[in-house]
């Protein structure tokens, strides 16, 4: 473990680039994040901002032919970026659990639920067959599945969406991981089931004290479970703060616009905030200056930094670029100088 015992995972200057016609384009650019023990770190952003690429980089799911991962991901004094597949196999499922968005395509349709959970135990533990079977039932029980004996013998298609996601969580938990990465774990579920799964994640985390990286696009989910939040835009972290600070005191124009575009209780007949333009594609992304500047053209160029850095504006609250100081919404005062 690194200097501070509370730090589980430290990501430093991570850059994951994809090859498109012999040029590498970074989808995750210069991201530094720390995951502490017993903490839920949410990574929020819209599609294409690089949040899932970040998650898959941590567990080494990228193909080395078309993808280049640079930087450092420190876990237990080893840099995960340089690991070989054999070394990774020891970590995945044991130290790091992964929960995928769509449990139906992540589970093997031809294997019984019990066998799928057992698979990880075969590789990572020295338990014998009976012990493993007992552990499987224990795990299923832990994630709140009724009739564990029967469910262990069923196939994924026989379960409902919520139950399947619970099975995914049971698989992720099977190695008692220090880190769980949950990539949009509730996006495919109904709200009532979503609430149950989120409550379950939170309860389980209290039990096993692991750190969770929760990747989501839903700010409501973030407000319900996260402790700290990192907002990503176009491959960069543009704001990082504790959850209360982020919702009470958002600074970056992107975060503020996003929060204003949620259809909310008290804005029933108002117009929702719309962010002008769209996320530039990976190839066309500007490599210089503030990446958000093209979407807030009414803010003068002088407000942006030339090479935007993360600045600490309050303890633990980081904001990229300086444009937030002069930012106002277009329809607010000051829009004349557009």
């Amino acid at each position, binding site marked *: 473990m690194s200097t501070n015992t509370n730090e589980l995972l430290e990501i430093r200057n991570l850059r994951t680039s994809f090859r498109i016609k012999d040029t590498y384009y970074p989808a995750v650019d210069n991201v530094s994040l720390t995951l502490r023990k017993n903490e839920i770190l949410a990574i929020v952003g819209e599609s294409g901002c690089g949040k899932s690429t970040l998650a898959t980089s941590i567990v080494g799911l990228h193909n080395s032919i078309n993808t280049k991962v640079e930087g450092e991901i420190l876990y237990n004094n080893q840099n995960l970026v340089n690991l070989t597949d054999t070394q990774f196999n020891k970590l995945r499922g044991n130290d790091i659990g992964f929960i995928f968005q769509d449990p139906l395509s992540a589970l093997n349709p031809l294997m019984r639920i019990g066998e799928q959970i057992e698979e990880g135990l075969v590789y990572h533990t020295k338990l014998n067959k009976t012990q493993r079977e007992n552990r499987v039932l224990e795990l299923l029980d832990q994630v709140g599945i009724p009739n564990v004996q029967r469910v262990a013998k069923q196939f994924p298609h026989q379960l409902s969406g919520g139950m399947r996601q619970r099975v995914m969580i049971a698989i992720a938990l099977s190695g008692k991981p220090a880190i769980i990465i949950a990539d949009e774990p509730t996006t495919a579920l109904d*709200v009532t089931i*979503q609430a149950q799964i989120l409550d379950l994640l939170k309860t389980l985390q209290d039990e096993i004290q692991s750190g969770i990286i929760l990747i989501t696009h*839903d700010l409501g989910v973030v407000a319900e479970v*996260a402790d700290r939040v990192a907002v990503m835009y176009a491959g960069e972290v543009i704001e990082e703060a504790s*959850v209360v600070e982020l919702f009470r005191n958002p600074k970056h124009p992107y975060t503020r616009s996003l*929060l204003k575009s949620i259809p*909310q209780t008290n804005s029933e007949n108002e117009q*929702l905030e719309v*962010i002008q333009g*769209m996320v530039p594609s990976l190839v066309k992304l500007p490599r210089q200056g503030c990446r958000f500047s093209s979407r807030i053209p009414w803010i003068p160029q002088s407000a942006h930094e030339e090479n935007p850095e993360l600045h600490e504006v309050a303890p633990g609250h980081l904001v990229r670029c300086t444009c937030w100081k002069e930012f106002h919404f277009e329809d607010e005062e000051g829009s004349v100088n557009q």
Partner: protein
Amino acid sequence: MSFMQVEDLKVHYPIRGGFFNTVVDHVYAVDGVTMEFERGKTYGLVGESGSGKSTTGKAIIGLEKITSGRIIYEGEEVTNARRKRDSAYNRDIQMIFQDSHSSMNPKKRVLDILAEPIRNFLKLSPQEERKRINELLAIVGMSEDVLLKYPHEFSGGQKQRLGIARAVACNPKMIIADEPVSALDLSVQAQVLNFMKDIQEQYGISYLFISHDLGVVRHMCDNISIMYKGRFVETGKREDIYTNPKHIYTNRLLSAIPDIEPETRNERKLERQKVEAAYREEQHKYYDEDGKVYPLKSISDTHKVAMSVDEKERV
């Protein structure tokens, strides 16, 4: 005055099996839905997956065969009717689909996609048609240089806007929007919802807004119906549903919506668990022996709740 009524709409799918592949049972996808539509209003249809909300929408527009019940449009019955392709009903009721990409012919250009309803229903000269298409693009905030592009060249939000433009091409009276924004990002979703509201104000269109997102429904709809197993459990004005929910299922659904208030999340969690426990214990009171929802009873002018006969007496 309502211009369209749906009376006791039922859509049942047969389940075949056994010897000679006979009908052994039915799936009661929509099981007795009654609605009325007024001009310029938005009607929300909310429910979990499998509750029959999309089937209701499809049955109304004529994409599903109706088992029983009636749809009356401006005094004329249009249920399962053999209609002429250019009948008034087909012209006046339009649909926006969830997945706008698969609802557009990939081999057609935007020009032809938008022209199709115009060519079907309105007799316009080529010049007038072109003028109308340009108007439509202006309504959804797109420039004229998209006309010769193909659907795959657009982003999800743009495609959804083209879907809206296509739906409003013939000045419809009602648009059935089946999860129009659930595949979109937050900021794009905001844009599409704003367009839908603008168009409604300008042209007095009614919407049947089908969604599972209670936040979006609250933002958009005047009247909301909550659906469960093919029936309505509660229907009423927006305020009726959100401030005074009566049915335990509505309560459960409302308590499960994530809120963007991180300070009060622990209270909300306790509240949610309380409602969930109450739902498990008391749900037999709210559903009949077969697990079906009771018929709706009025508790005020606008607010109707499904309840059994003896419960009616208690209220």
